[in-house]
């Protein structure tokens, strides 16, 4: 190739000018590089690149202009290099050694080389479509043009200087640092355009851009200019940090927050401008003239996305800061200001009837509030009132509702139910339920959960919403627990706590996986989903509540089962049973140390009828202090333990007695005699206990009939026979229905009729669902979360 080239140029040496010759040589090298790129041959690329540089640098005297072709080539080469490096990283397959070496060499060379030509590359990138083979005349024209621009620039600068001198006698300080660029409100639009065009390009110094824009903002003189500059400045600050996993610098975040506020203030003060996502992109850099009475001028941009992004960055920073440091607390203090901005944005959108943006803001607002206790919401709202000017009033939340957090949340949610799209509605509903549960309104929360049919299709929603759903379920469970509804609490918490993946399901920490390795992207996503620490639900408290509920249900049921193997198999809470078994297998058991030990000890005491010891152990658990009204909860638990203790006692020891004195039972469990009678009556009525009361002597008479072995076996035999017949019937039924379907398919006409008939049941079924939701509360609750866990399992 080399020799060919040289011979070619030899032939033409006489006819061509030195410049043309150079261009030809360049062309040849470029072609070779292009070919090599196609086959990814870095050794060739390296050789040709060296040659290219030699030609370019050894240009004849007077030809100091670097050929455009050269610039184009090195720019493209750089892109290709980056691309290759990227690919290299992703793919497992390695390049061979020589290739890899060449690639590495090129990487360094190009970096070094391209730095010299930065400006030219930039220019080329701005206008890559221009003709590749530009002749010198065109080049010259361009040069001249450029000069004129520069000259005019200088002129205007002079003018500006003069003006400045005239005005106040000093010039802008920045001028010294970069004497060639001066920013004024006159050339603002042009500079702005330059910056905007450079945005997103390689080699653009992002920090530099931000600085330029900030300077522009200083000189901007009209609201329109300010808006335009801010619209450019805010995104470029967001862009500053290119990586998804890192969070934005806190100072920069704060300045962005300030700028967004500034933007909002400008817009509030100048109602003649509206920022709209669907607006036409304005091309002229002129100040628009808006006269009074005309519709406001729309500017293209999206404040919603700014605020969204700001909020996301805030969350991201909280995810990354260690929650146990003061940094975290300091960062958390910024939330109020952020919240104020969100409220401000909401009011702005509301005023301008941008309903979609409004609902997004309302959702953001809700998500900042729903998990907080009343006092915090109150303080935040009050601070926001002081931050925002009085004139700003929202129609969604009236001032009266701002004084009452429940009212506030209610009005926000109702707005979203009415206006929001389905995802926002779902999330709003979940937040609303969460809030109710937090305030111990179990029935309201339960009814909302069931009436909204959220659980039917929560598996189809995105993972973030599913996490919110899990959080809500857990909170509803805790609410039931606080209200003393042990059974409800257990069934709500069962699916989440029973999995042993609580952390993952609530997005409060990654699960350390011993056997499976998550793909890195998956892990990254999981990491991004984590909730910041201040939103966490205390897992230990959760486990404690769950295990206590399980104990109160499981111990009597185990006692009732007695030696009956079949009944023993009916497990209410698997994790509880597992722990109890483990605990019982231990040869020595020391004094309880953690929450689990306490509960296991309590469970064993309860099973043995020592309810006082059980109470002591449960009361000794320290984590109860985290619940509001600790004493009330402890009292409730004590009471439950007494009752369940009585039941367990009756189940366990009733076989050894003919009669039991009610008074004695009452003193044994220190319960009022009425309660004892009621509990025993209930057990008799539900046929849990074969006994009856003797009102005259105030005793329980137990009718225990001991079965002989033969009788017992006969009974079992009879039961087996029944289940056989039932199984047979079911099989037949199934066969019948499937057979019918097949026959129907054979006959078209019959098939149509079949469908007609089926329409109605489908409609009725919907009603049935509604019914089910209310009455089979426990089942439904269980199902939905189970679905979620299955999906998770599938995912991982």
């Amino acid at each position: 190739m080399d020799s060919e080239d040289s011979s070619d140029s030899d032939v033409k040496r006489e006819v061509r000018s030195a410049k043309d010759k150079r261009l030809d040589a360049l062309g040849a090298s470029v072609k070779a590089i292009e070919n090599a790129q196609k086959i990814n041959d870095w050794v060739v690329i390296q050789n040709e690149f060296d040659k290219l540089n030699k030609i370019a640098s050894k240009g004849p005297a007077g030809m100091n202009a670097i050929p455009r072709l050269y610039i184009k080539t090195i720019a493209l080469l750089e892109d290709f290099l980056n691309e290759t490096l990227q690919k290299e990283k992703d793919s497992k397959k390695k390049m061979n050694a020589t290739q890899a070496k060449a690639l590495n060499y090129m990487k360094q060379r190009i970096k070094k080389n391209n730095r010299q030509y930065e400006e030219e590359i930039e220019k080329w990138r701005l206008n890559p479509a221009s003709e590749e083979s530009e002749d010198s005349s065109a080049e010259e024209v361009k040069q001249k043009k450029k000069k004129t621009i520069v000259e005019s620039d200088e002129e205007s600068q002079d003018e500006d200087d003069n003006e400045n001198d005239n005005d106040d006698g000093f010039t802008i300080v920045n001028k010294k640092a970069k004497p060639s660029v001066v920013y004024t409100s006159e050339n603002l639009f042009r500079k702005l355009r330059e910056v905007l065009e450079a945005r997103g390009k390689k080699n653009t110094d992002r920090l530099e851009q931000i600085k330029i824009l900030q300077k522009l903002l200083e000189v901007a003189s009209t609201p329109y200019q300010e808006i335009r500059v801010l619209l450019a400045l805010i995104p470029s600050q967001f862009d500053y940090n290119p990586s998804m996993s890192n969070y934005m610098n806190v100072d920069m975040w704060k300045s962005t927050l300030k700028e967004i506020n500034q933007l909002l203030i400008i817009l509030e003060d100048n109602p003649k401008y509206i920022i709209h996502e669907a607006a036409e992109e304005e091309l002229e850099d002129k100040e628009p003239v808006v006269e009074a009475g005309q519709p406001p001028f729309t500017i293209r941009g999206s404040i919603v996305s700014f605020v969204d992004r700001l909020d996301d960055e805030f969350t991201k920073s909280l995810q990354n800061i260690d929650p146990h440091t003061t940094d975290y607390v300091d960062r958390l203090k910024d939330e109020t200001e952020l919240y104020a901005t969100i409220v401000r944005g909401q009011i702005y959108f509301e005023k301008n009837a941008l309903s979609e943006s409004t609902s997004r803001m309302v959702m953001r607002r809700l998500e900042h509030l729903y998990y907080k206790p009343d006092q915090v919401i109150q303080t935040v709202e009050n601070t926001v009132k002081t931050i925002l000017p009085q004139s700003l009033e929202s129609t969604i939340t009236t001032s009266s509702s701002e004084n009452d957090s429940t009212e506030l949340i209610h009005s926000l949610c109702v707005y979203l139910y009415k206006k929001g799209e389905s995802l926002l509605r779902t999330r709003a509903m979940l937040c609303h339920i969460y809030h109710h549960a937090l305030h111990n309104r179990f029935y309201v929360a339960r009814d909302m959960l069931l009436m909204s049919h959220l659980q039917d299709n929560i598996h189809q929603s995105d993972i973030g919403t599913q996490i919110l759903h899990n959080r809500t379920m857990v909170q509803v469970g805790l609410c039931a627990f606080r209200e003393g509804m042990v059974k409800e609490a257990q069934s709500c918490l069962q699916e989440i706590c029973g999995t042993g993946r609580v952390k993952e399901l609530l997005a409060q920490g990654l699960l350390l996986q011993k056997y499976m390795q998550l793909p890195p992207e998956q892990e990254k996503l999981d990491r991004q989903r984590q909730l910041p620490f201040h939103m966490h639900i205390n897992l230990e408290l959760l486990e404690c509540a769950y295990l206590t509920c399980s104990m109160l249900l499981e111990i009597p049921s185990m006692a009732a089962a007695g030696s009956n193997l079949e009944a023993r198999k009916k497990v209410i809470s698997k994790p509880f049973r597992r722990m109890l078994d483990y605990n019982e297998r231990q040869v020595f058991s020391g004094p309880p140390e953690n929450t689990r030990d306490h509960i296991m000890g309590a469970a064993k005491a309860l099973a043995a009828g020592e309810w006082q010891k059980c109470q002591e152990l449960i009361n000794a658990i320290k984590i109860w202090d985290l619940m509001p009204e600790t004493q009330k909860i402890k009292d409730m638990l004590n009471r439950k333990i007494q009752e369940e203790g009585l039941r367990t006692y009756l189940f366990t020891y009733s076989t050894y007695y003919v009669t039991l004195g009610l008074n004695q039972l009452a003193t044994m469990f220190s319960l009022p005699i009425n309660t004892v009678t009621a509990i025993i009556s209930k057990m008799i009525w539900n046929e849990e206990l074969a006994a009856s009361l003797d009102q005259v002597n105030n005793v329980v008479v137990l009718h225990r009939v001991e079965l002989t072995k033969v009788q017992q076996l006969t009974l079992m035999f009879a039961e087996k026979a029944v289940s056989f017949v039932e199984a047979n019937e079911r099989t037949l039924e199934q066969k019948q229905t499937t057979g019918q379907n097949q026959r129907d398919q054979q006959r078209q006409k019959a098939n149509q009729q079949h469908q007609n008939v089926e329409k109605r049941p489908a409609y009725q079924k919907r009603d049935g669902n509604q019914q089910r939701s209310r009455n089979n509360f426990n089942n439904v609750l269980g199902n939905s979360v189970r679905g979620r866990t299955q999906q998770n399992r599938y995912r991982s």
Partner: protein
Amino acid sequence: MASYDLIPRMIPYMDRHLVFPLLEFLSFNKIYPDHDLLKAKYELLAKTNMVDFISELYKQIHNTDKVPSEFAIKRQEVLQTLENLQTEAQKVLDIIENPEVITALRQDKLQNLHFLREKYGLTDEMVYTLYQFAQFQYNCGNYGGASSLLYHFRILSTDHELILSALWGKLASDILDPNWDADAALEEVQKLRETIDQKNFASPLHQLQQRTWFIHWSIFVFFNHPKGRDSIIDVFFNPSYINTIQTSCPWILRYLTTAVVTNKRRKNILKDLIKIIQQESYEYRDPITEFIESLYVKFDFEGAQHKLKECEEVLSNDFFLVATKMEFIENARYLISETYCRIHLKIDISGLSQTLNLGKEEGEKWIVNLIRDTRVDAKIDFKENTVIMNQNHTSIYQQVIECTKGLSFRSQVMSSTIEKREAHQSSNAVEAVVE
């Protein structure tokens, strides 16, 4: 007592005319001040066409004999419209009542309409006047007339929306036409229910509303018709209706509970009722549901006894339930004693009589009656003044027999279905071959 009065809650779901008897009842019971009630009545009826009655009320409220002139004007207007509508509707009625026409009418509505149009020039507008006239009659308080007009309208009209509202109208007229012996109202209830269940409503909310209205209106019928108390259980325990009650009008539980308690044959439904009462207890409770709750959930017999006393009062102040008061108390006693006896082995008679709100003598009589009716298997020990229950344990042999009783029959059914199916299949095969 006003706190247990459900009428204010129910009024939003009733028609003006249906509310009137309720208010009448209230003024009779004197829970609220008379003057307020008179005003309420006046406001209620001000928009109807019963001008004479309204002016009468006006006089009572303001204690004058003078009546504003607007009443007279309105009276004139009403009479005028009445006449107009009457003449127009008469045309239609003439056609319909023609015996020739009656014999010619078929099942198919469209065909009928076509036929009437061809032969007698009956137009859709004319049919519509029938509807208007019925509405007017109803507004004037002539419920019987409205009812029969709507009957005719329903036969002729093909507009589904209007037919539905005609159904509502006819139900209201039949309720207000105090003729309970005829089954008209009960039939109407049935028809309306079918229509509501089968109709495809635009939104579930609309359907819920319709059902709520229906539930409120039907109470009139259910508690006045002799067969009503069976039907109320059938209808309200239907999944979609119990759901409606739970979502939009939990106070209906009082009526449902009363119906269940007073119904001797449908005791098995009690379990479902208890469940529902328990679920709704945070939203609605009154002495009647609390009675059931304390008896079957808390097993607090003393509490049940207190509640029963309160029930008496509540029932005597409830428009719908006044008539069933004695029956309710009687049946509630049965429930208490039944539960009590099932749990206890030995009962002190005086204690039981106290629980039942009866004197000692009465209590003994009551128990003897119970034993005689074989509701309870027990003996009285006169010396100790106690009742001793006979414990009837199902012996193990009994259990096995119970268990295996149906098995052979079920197996037989199964084998016969299999045979049938095989026969069917072979015939199908033959058919297939022939085809």
